[in-house]
């Protein structure tokens, strides 16, 4: 009577469908397509869905047809087997009917098996493709777009959102096919027996189907409330763990407990409310089935007296009506899942619709020859979308092999300068040239090979030290890695690690200290062997020992290369060949540390206050 994994009781139990956050994010496209258009585009994106779909559907039709075999058998036996000419039941006829029906059932079972296997294979393959495309596209987006949405939401695009489609395909979608098929086949057979009674049955059940749609809208609101309350609750409980020491230090246990209680109760209330809606369908379906049964019996008998229907047909009718109840009971859940799936699909499409604003010229791109890099900024200006100008007509040149420090207060434009230099963003006006070529014309593969940026936070992957360093150059051997570490003057540090290169770094590198993470990032950059090195100096204080190591590694890393470093500590500026001083989006001073420090100006002020605070 019910099809695969039909667990209405489970599904409605507040296990609210998982959902990837609705937060659209400023930089991301939101697909505005309607449901049908979304599905059509989704199907086109993953051709595996449609491949051989007609055969799957054909199998589904045959499998569904199996549902009416039993009522037919009952009808045949009551009408033609109960009484023969001799007034005795015709066992031979019954045996023949049963044999034929059993054979047919077996065939439909095989079809059901094949349909299921094909459906799973097609949908899972298609969704894996969709995941891969979306994942790749996220990486192709510019840093600006990636940051405009929370990272968690991006992850949801390739996980929870796709899972939602998957759940629908394998439960809701399958149910939809089976239910529609079931209603169709039952209706056709009923109509063969009696169109009048068929009409009667539909009149009874139609309001339920319409009501289900209405209910589903309220239900999805109720589920949304459950998700929101659950989020609050998990946040509050999370604080008891993550804020454990603060709570104890300020002795706010009681207040925290009350906050937890409030959110837990709010969640429970929302769950109960959603469940009240979701469970309402089933009793109604029971009632309507009862009304339908009563109406069919009364009308059927009256009809039968006039010869419009046989006894067997009437009894078969009652069996066929059970085929109506299950689809009706599940209709709200199916609608709900369909809606979630379409929303999920729309979000995934939204990612794919977002055009990467920093595009790789690809094949047409210029390949740059190796060797120290000359950098030229030609009247470069930049403003964030909808924001004020943060970099204003900067026109500078950096000679090959120069070590440049970039200094300035927060918001002076120094970070923007570096982002434009590494082509994490493109200028609004002007051009950035390396070795005379516009950055926008350089193939990414060539650009990444020649220029490496070491960000402020040395992000590491949850793997070994070696794997993290090798991230820059997968073919590097252990010996090469060790040589690199040695050359950067870090052999003593590596020697101090119990497992050497095999040391696991933990999630996001958290088994190492912040300073050690920075060291790994520097080694990684060294192994990549770039011609232009861009560094964003770490701001958080590390212990002096590591500080010295970092300094030593940096000196050797930048040796003989063009390098540009955002200097938060002015000791870095002291060591540089040249200093670029930013203020209000412009370069206001340029020169060696010695020259700048001795002249009154922005740099001298910065330096004076730094000296006071650090010595």
């Amino acid at each position, binding site marked *: 009577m019910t099809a695969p994994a039909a667990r209405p*009781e489970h599904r409605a139990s507040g296990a609210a469908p998982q959902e990837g956050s609705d937060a659209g994010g400023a930089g991301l496209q939101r697909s505005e397509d309607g449901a049908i258009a979304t599905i059509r585009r989704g199907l086109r994106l993953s051709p595996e869905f449609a491949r051989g779909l007609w055969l799957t559907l054909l199998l589904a039709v045959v499998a569904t047809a199996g549902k009416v075999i039993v009522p037919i058998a009952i009808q045949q*036996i009551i009408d033609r087997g109960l009484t023969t000419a001799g007034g005795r039941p015709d066992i031979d006829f019954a045996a023949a009917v049963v044999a034929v029906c059993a054979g047919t059932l077996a065939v439909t079972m095989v079809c059901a098996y094949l349909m299921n296997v094909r459906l799973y294979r097609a949908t899972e393959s298609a969704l894996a493709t969709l995941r891969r495309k979306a994942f790749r596209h996220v*990486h192709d987006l510019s840093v600006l777009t990636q940051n405009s949405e929370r*990272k968690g939401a991006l992850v949801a695009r390739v996980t929870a959102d796709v899972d939602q489609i998957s759940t629908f395909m394998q439960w809701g979608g399958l149910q939809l096919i089976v239910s529609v098929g079931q209603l169709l086949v039952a209706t056709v057979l009923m109509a063969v027996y009696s169109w009048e009674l068929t009409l009667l049955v539909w009149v009874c059940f139609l309001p339920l189907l319409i009501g289900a749609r209405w209910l589903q809208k309220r239900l999805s609101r109720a589920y949304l409330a459950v998700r929101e309350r659950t989020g609050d609750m998990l946040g509050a409980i999370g604080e008891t763990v*993550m804020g454990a020491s603060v709570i104890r230090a300020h002795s706010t246990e009681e207040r925290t407990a009350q906050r937890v209680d409030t959110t837990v109760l709010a969640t429970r209330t929302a769950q109960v409310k959603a*469940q009240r809606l979701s469970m309402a369908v089933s009793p109604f379906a029971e009632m309507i089935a009862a009304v339908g049964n009563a109406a069919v019996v009364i009308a059927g008998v009256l009809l*039968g007296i006039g010869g419009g229907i046989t006894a067997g047909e009437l009894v078969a009718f009652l069996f066929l009506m059970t085929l109506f109840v299950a689809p009706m009971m599940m209709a709200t859940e199916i609608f709900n899942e369909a809606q979630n799936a379409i929303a999920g699909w729309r979000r995934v499409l939204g990612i794919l619709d977002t055009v990467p604003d920093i595009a790789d010229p690809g094949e047409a791109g210029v390949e740059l020859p190796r060797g120290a890099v000359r950098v030229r900024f030609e009247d470069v200006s930049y403003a964030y979308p909808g924001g004020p100008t943060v970099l204003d007509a900067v026109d500078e040149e950096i000679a090959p092999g120069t070590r440049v420090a970039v200094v300035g207060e927060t918001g002076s434009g120094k970070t923007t300068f570096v982002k434009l230099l590494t082509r994490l963003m493109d200028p609004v006006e002007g051009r950035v040239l390396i070795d005379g070529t516009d950055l926008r014309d350089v193939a990414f593969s060539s650009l990444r090979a020649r220029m490496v940026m070491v960000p402020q936070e040395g992000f590491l992957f949850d793997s070994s030290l070696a794997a993290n360093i090798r991230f820059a150059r997968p073919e590097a051997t252990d010996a090469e890695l060790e040589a690199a570490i040695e050359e950067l003057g870090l052999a003593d540090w590596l020697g101090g690690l119990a497992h050497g290169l095999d040391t696991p770094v933990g999630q996001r590198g958290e088994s190492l200290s912040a300073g050690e993470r920075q060291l790994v990032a520097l080694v990684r950059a060294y192994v990549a062997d770039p011609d232009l090195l861009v560094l964003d100096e770490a701001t958080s204080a590390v212990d002096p020992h590591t500080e010295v190591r970092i300094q030593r590694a940096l000196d050797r890393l930048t040796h003989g290369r063009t390098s540009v470093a955002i200097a938060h500590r002015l000791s870095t500026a002291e*060591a540089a060949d040249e200093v670029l001083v930013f203020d209000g989006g412009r370069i206001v001073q340029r020169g060696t540390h010695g020259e700048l420090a001795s002249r009154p100006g922005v740099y001298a002020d910065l330096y004076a206050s730094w000296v006071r605070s650090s010595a």
Partner: protein
Amino acid sequence: MPHDSTSSRRPGQAVFRRGMYVLWVAIRTEPLVFLVAVAGAGLHAAFSVGSASVMGGITDRVVLPAFEHGSTTAAALLAAGGLLLGVGLAKAVGLAFRRLFAGLMQFRMQARFRRSVARTYLRLPLSWHHRHATGQLLSNANADVEESWRPLAPLPMVIGSIAMLAIAAAAMVITDPVLALIGFVVFPVLALANVVFQRRVSPVATRAQALRAHVSEVAHESFDGALVVKSLGREDTETERFTEAAHRLRDAQIHVGRMRAVFDPVMENLPNFGILAVLLVGMWRLSTGAITPGDLVQVAYLFTLLTLPIRSFGWILGDLPRTVVAWNRVQAVLTAQGTMPYGDRRVPEGRGGLRLTAEGIGFSYEDGYTGGGRDLSDTEHTAAGHSTVLHDVGLDIAPGRTVALVGPTGAGKSTLTTVLMRLVDPDTGTVRLDGVDVRELAKGEIARAAALVPQSAFVFEDTVRGNITLGAGIDDAEVWAALRLACADSFVAALPEGLDTPLGERGTSLSGGQRQRLALARAVVRKPRLLILDDATSAVDPQVEAQILAGLRETDLAATVIVVAYRRATIELADEVVYLERGTVSDRGTHAELLERSPGYQRLVTAYERAAAERAARLEPGEGGPEPHGLRPSRPAAAGGAAQDTDQTRETVR
């Protein structure tokens, strides 16, 4: 932490017994709700079987006679219709009660246990928290509690189904023992197939779930490191890594699908084969006159009704293993031992700073400390697997003094601050505030008198105001004063809703330095008489840090201040320096004194200068300009000199 009591010789049985116990706990806790749900289930079950009898009866007494004689009575029709309606109504009522109360029971148990778990987290000492990973604890409160009570939703239905089977069996035997025999073959086979299916699909489904989590982890990590991926041009290999994970998930899902594809048609059609058998045997029974056609219809109808209830057993059986594992995890939290006993003494009343004394403090971390990723993650513990030990640490800090706690990585500075605040108790030794042993103080007394600002500041999911007051009745003027002192007033004033701006995951996110300043304001607003700053301004610009520290000295707070610091400017602000090395106080005195007599201290605080000097030596000489920073002679650092310094700093900054 995952305890698994399933390691006995017959794991299946052990899981089943343990699972039943878990269900029993729920029934015992919510007996009334459970009874109502079961009563509803019983009502539904009884009338479901009843509906089959009604069908059979109507076939025999109304339908067949009417077709035979070509006439019927209004009374017969009305009786038939009324019976069908009545039975339907009873079923609907039963169903409504069953589902409503089953859900209520599940949600109540979830809520109850989430509260208990959260309260346990609040009760257990910090040392316990240090031994458990954050992610694990969060999942205990969330997924594990949910998993524990998942079977409660279908439980009443299953109990109703047992009743239904019993009633149906009786009804069939009464109707015709021979036809009943078919049922006695078909339904046990169905139940068995069900159990086999659940047994076989459950590990595969669990594997798929784990792979789903893996896909998510890969995506999370890869997007977190997007900048590194981009700057090294590794998009292709990352996509490959992700695709591999996605394909493994795909294969596992297809495996689950293939099992479903086998079992679902079997489960669905076994009763149909049963009905066909009933029809065949029933014809023979009819021919001998043992049954009526109505009996045949009734038994056949029962077969269609019983399919779903039988399957409901599978739902619970399938859930039990996960339920048991989750329950064991939750129990491990709820039964965790360890409390911090409190006394009933109060910190002596008075104004101004507290005298802080510590004698013979010894402390060692137990194995399994999880290190980083929580709010007390001081660098001492982040190197995997090495635990810090304090031994025989003594301190005597006079009221109102500012003391810098200095030492190399791993010296135990952060650990010492948590001991001084009694976030953890030391293994040996005593900490006294104004002469009172902190262990004799009443709960909340230390928090009333002292405040600790950790290096990584924790921000609550609350407004700025809520984050500062933490629910205490503190007026806005005081909040602003504290923000000013922490140099946080300007950025708070610039927030869209000022003090009412929500912070945290769903609110505005702050930079590391802003968070630290907020945490500092949270501490000073309480007017502590002892203030401990554990490298609490590391993410703040040096200039702002100097301003904050100078402000602290100038207020009427007059608190005793302990500062854990790396920056020399910070150290120089202190009246006295305590130099900690390998878990013990190696020396104490003024900065100048230590610089002179403690080689370790000297190495530590001049590390930057030496590095700069090294570099300066490599630079071409005679570039002009002032002397490189590292070659400047170090200045006298007496308290007075330091204070003078700060004044200047304040002037330049303002």
